[in-house]
C-alpha cells in the first residue's frame, strides 16, 4: 500500500469511516453489491439504494446491477433519497492528512445521496488521494465550482454532554471504497 493511501486510511478510520481497497473495478463492484445486499437493500419500501452514476460505472450495464440487487435506483430524486437506506456516489479527490473526501457537489443528486440516507458508500480512485487540502484546491477551485463538499467521516455530534454520537442529520455510516484501476475497464 502506498504511503498516501495508508495515511488516508488511518485518518479516515480514526473518524469512524470504513475504508476498503481493491485493485480492479469488478472486484470493487462485487464488494459493493454484496454490501448492499447485506445492508438489506431491496425493492421493499424504505429499503432502496440511490446511486449517482459516474465514470466508475462506464461500461457497466445499470440494468444488470439492478437485477443483481433489486432496490438500486439510478434515478436520484429527493423522495427516493429520503426513503433510501444507502446512497452511493463517486468522489473526486481525497486528502490523506485528514482522511477527507472532496467533491464538486454542484449537481444536487450528489448531495442528496450523501446526506439523506443513513449509509453513504463513497467511491474514489487510489490516484485521487492527495496529501493536503491545498493540493485538492488546486484541482477543485471554488472559482469554477459553485458547491464543493468536504466529507470527513460520518455525521456526528457531541452536543449533549459532549458524548460523541455518530449519525445526526447526515449518514451514520460512511463506507469508502478505494479502487486502483478506477477508470479502466477490466476485461
Amino acid at each position, binding site marked *: 500500500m502506498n504511503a498516501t493511501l495508508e495515511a488516508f486510511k488511518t*485518518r479516515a478510520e480514526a473518524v469512524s469511516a470504513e475504508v476498503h481497497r481493491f485493485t480492479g473495478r469488478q472486484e470493487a463492484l462485487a464488494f459493493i453489491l454484496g454490501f448492499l445486499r447485506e445492508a438489506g437493500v431491496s425493492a421493499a419500501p424504505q429499503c432502496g439504494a440511490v446511486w449517482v452514476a459516474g465514470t466508475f460505472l462506464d461500461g457497466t450495464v445499470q440494468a444488470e446491477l439492478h437485477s443483481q440487487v433489486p432496490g438500486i435506483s439510478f434515478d436520484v430524486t429527493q423522495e427516493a433519497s429520503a426513503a433510501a437506506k444507502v446512497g452511493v456516489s463517486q468522489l473526486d479527490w481525497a*486528502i490523506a492528512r485528514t482522511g477527507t473526501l472532496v467533491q464538486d457537489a454542484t449537481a*444536487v443528486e450528489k448531495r442528496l445521496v450523501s446526506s439523506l440516507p443513513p449509509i453513504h458508500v463513497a467511491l474514489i480512485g487510489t490516484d485521487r488521494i492527495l496529501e493536503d487540502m491545498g493540493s485538492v484546491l488546486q484541482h477543485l477551485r471554488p472559482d469554477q465550482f*459553485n*458547491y*464543493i463538499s*468536504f466529507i470527513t467521516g460520518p455525521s456526528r455530534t457531541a452536543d*449533549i454532554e*459532549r458524548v460523541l454520537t455518530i449519525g445526526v*442529520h447526515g449518514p451514520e455510516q460512511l463506507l469508502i471504497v478505494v479502487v486502483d484501476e478506477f477508470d479502466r475497464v477490466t476485461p
Partner: protein
Amino acid sequence: MTTQFKESIETALNNGNLTGALGRFSEAYRISRAKAYEGIDFEAVRDRIAEIKGSASSRFEELAEQFKQKAESRGAKVFRTADPDQVKQYILDLAKAEGVKRVVKSKSMASEEIHLNAALEKAGIEVDETDLGEWIIQLAHQTPSHMVMPAIHMTKEEVAEVFSQEVEEGQTPNIPKLVKFARAKLRPKFLQADMGITGANIAVAETGSLVIVTNEGNARLVTTLPKIHVAIVGIEKLVALLEEIQPILTALPRSATGQLLTSYVSIISGPVPNPDGSPKELHIILMDNHRSDMAKDPKFKEALQCIRCATCLNVCPVFRLVGGHVFGKTYTGGIGTILTAWFDELKKAEDIQGLCIQCGSCVPLCPGKIDIPGLILELRRRLVVEKGQSLAMKAIFGVVNNRRLFHSMLRMASVTQKPFKQGRFIRHLPLFLSDLTDFRSLPAIAAVPFRDMVKAIVQPKGGDKVAFYAGCLIDFAYPEMGASLVKILNKAGIEVVFPDDQTCCGAPARYNGAYEVAAQNARENIKALLETDVQYVVSACPTCTVALKHDFIDTFKSLGVTDPLTLAEAEKVSAKTIDFSSLVKKLVDAGRLTFKEGEALGKITYHDSCHLKRTLKASGEPRALLQQAGHEIAEMYECDTCCGMAGSYSLKLPEISAPILERKLKHIKDTGASKVAMDCPGCVMQIRGGLDKDGAPIQAEHTAELLSDRFL
C-alpha cells in the same frame, strides 16, 4: 456590580450539573486540543491567521464590495447593511414575497446576535434550529451558553425533559436515543422548509465563496433542500484570498473540538440546482453591526481576528465555574465580553468584564493571537473614563496615590489587626469583611516592614549593586521573603539597595481601570528606582515585575503620554527589571552562587504564577533552582492554572476565587508533596491562607525562602 449579576453568578456556581460538566470538559479539552495539533506549528498557523484577518479588517469596505461583485456575478444576491434591523427586514420581505412559511436554520451566531428567530416567529413564520444544541436551547427557550456547544450547560436528563415537554412525551435520558429522536423529528422539517438560513465561517472576497463548517450535516441539508438559501455573514468573516481559508480551516476544528477537520466543510460560491431542478435563490447578507467601528479602533481591531473557536471559554478558569449564561444572551466568555461591548453596547459589558481574572490562560492558545485579557482591561479603563470609578475605589486609590499616607496606614494596621491576629494569620474578620477570610486566612501585617528591616542588614559593599523593588505584600506582609532575597544576593557579593521612595506598583489601580492612578504610581517608582546606579532592578513579585517591565510604558501610552523623557525613563527601568528566579539562575550559571552539595530536601511541587509564566515566560528557572538545591519536583495537575488570587479580584468576587483555590489545593495535595513553592507573594497569600483554613500539613513558600539557606 449589580445585585442581579451577583445573583446570576451565585445561581451558576450552585448548579452542580453545570460546574461538573464544564469542569470535566475543560480537562478533556486540553488533551484533545494538544493531540489535534500534533505535527502542526501552531505559532506559525496563528501568525498567519492574525496576518490574514488583521489585513482583512484594515479593508473591510474594499473586500465587502469585491465579495458582493464576485458573488453577484455568479448569480447570488448580496445585501450589505450596517443595521441589524435591516437584516431582519430583508429576510422578512423576502419571506413574504416568496410565500415562505417554514424556515430551517443551521447554526449562526450572527442570527443570534440580531435575535432573528423572534422576528420571524412574530411574522408567523415557523423557524426550526437544526443544529442539535441550538434546537435543544430553542425548545428550552434559552440562549446559547457556548459558541461551539450551545447546550453544554444541560444534562441528558434535562434534554430528555425538554424533548418530552416540547416535542413528544416519554423521552428517556439516553444520549444515542435522544440524538435519533432529533434526527427523526427534524428530518420532515428539512424536507418541508421553504427557506434555509445559515451563517458562514469564512467569506472569500476573491471568489465570492462562503465556507461553512459543521459536524452534524445539517448545513448541507439546509443549503440543499429548501429553494431559498439565505446566509447571514458578519463582515469580520471576510478574507481576501481563497488560499487564506487553509490556515483558518487548520486551526478552527482543532481549537474548537480537537478535530483535524469537521465532518463537513462546504464551499458555496454560487446558486446550485434545487432537488426539482430549478435554480436555487442564494441571498448573502453582509452585516456590519459595529464591526467597522471596531476595525477603526486601534486597540479593538485585534478582536476581529477571532475565528470563533471558543478556546478562550474552554481554558478559562472562571468560565468553567460559571458557564456562559452569566455573560449574556449571545457571545460568551472572554471574547464574548469584548464582542458584547461592541455589537451590543459598552454598558452591557460593565459587569461581565469584571469576570476576567486576568490570568492570561487564553492568550497563548488563541488562534487569532488576540490579547483577550488586555482588551478586557482596556474595556475596564474606558468604562472608568466614561462612568468614573466607584466611591469606594476612589477612596482606596486616593490612599494608594499618597505613599506616605498609604504606608502609615499599613503600619497602623499592624497594630489595629491585633484582635484578629493568630500567629502569622488573620483567620476571621467581622461583618462584611468576613467574606475575605471565609475560604482562606489572610496574612497578618508584619510588625516591622521590610523597608525598616533592611536597614539593619549588614551587606557587602563595593561590588555590584542591585535595587530591590519589594512591592506592598513583601514590604508589609512578608518581609522575610525580602530578607531571603537579600541573603542570597549577598552570597553572590551583590549589595541590595532599597530605594525608600518606592511605592505601590500601580497594578491594583490599573487592573481596576484607574490608569491615572497607575501612571502616578509609575512616575514615583521610576524616579525612586533611577536614583541609584544599579545593574538590575529585582522583584520577587511577578505582578510588580510585569508592572515595572511592561505596564508602566503601556499605561503611559494608553493615556497618550508622549513626553520622550518619561517614556525613555520607563524604558530604562523596564530594561533593568528582572524577576527573582531569573536573576538567581543567571548568578548560578555564571558561577557566582554555588549550592551546598548533597542535600536531599525531599519532594516539592511548584505552582506557576500567571504573570511569571505567561508574561515573563519564566517557568524553567525556579524549577531548575529548586532541583539544584536538592528538591525533587512532583508536578501537580494544572500547575500553571491561576490560584484565584488575582489581586483585588479575590476581594470583589470571593465566590469565584474560592472554588478556583479549592481546585488548586486539591491538585497540590494530590502530589503528596509536603511543600509547594511559588514565586509570587500574592499566590503565597492565597495558597498559604487556603492551606491554613484547610488544615493540610503542607507548607506554601516563596522560592526565595526555600533557597535562602541553600548556598555556600
